[in-house]
């Protein structure tokens, strides 16, 4: 699933490791989400959105 997690994370000058620690997953999982190779659970999506101060739409809604 395409998403804008990486962009939002870089906007906040955050590393993958730092985001991973704040949402309680591994850095590998964050990397996979950013690459669109893993679809996170709704709970994890919400946690990421909360930490990055974005809405779910901002991060995960695909605009065609």
């Amino acid at each position, binding site marked *: 699933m395409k998403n804008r997690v990486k962009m939002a994370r870089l906007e906040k000058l955050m*590393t*993958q490791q730092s985001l991973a620690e704040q949402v*309680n*997953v*591994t*850095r*590998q*999982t964050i*990397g*996979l989400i*950013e*690459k669109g190779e*893993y679809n*996170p*659970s709704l709970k*994890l999506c919400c946690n990421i959105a909360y930490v990055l101060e974005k809405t779910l739409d901002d991060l995960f809604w695909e605009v065609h």
Partner: protein
Amino acid sequence: MIKSWFSVFLPEDEYKRQKSLYFFAEASVIIPIFLVVSLLINKLFFSINYEFLTILALGLFGLYILLRYSISGIEYISVSTKAEFNNKKKKTFVQSINFSFIFGLLYLVLVDLPNSRDNWFQFTLLLVVIFILFFTINYISLKKSYQKNMDLMD
């Protein structure tokens, strides 16, 4: 997280948990197939010792999960630089020696004490094989994890 007693066997991280769950599920499908085939062989061709079959089924179950886990690259999540990789490789080497040593010690205490030169040779050979297997599986896992982590880096 779905409530189940099985959760205690699964990692905390949700990606690792999902992957591990698949490995267990795949192994749980393979084992009944293996048992049905064994049952047919037992009925149609020759009888198989049930003790041997049980150990074989358990071994297959464990080995399948171990191999799938090792080649998936999800074990060493923090290894993403060459220095970390080399450092972990050294640690894996030492761990493999320790494991073989403890295995050998337990074997001598609990199973059998070799009583001839040939038996000692076989025992040493067994330890070398165990060392090679242990190191190889861990090295593959490390290498796969390193490659995967590098691909996913910032």
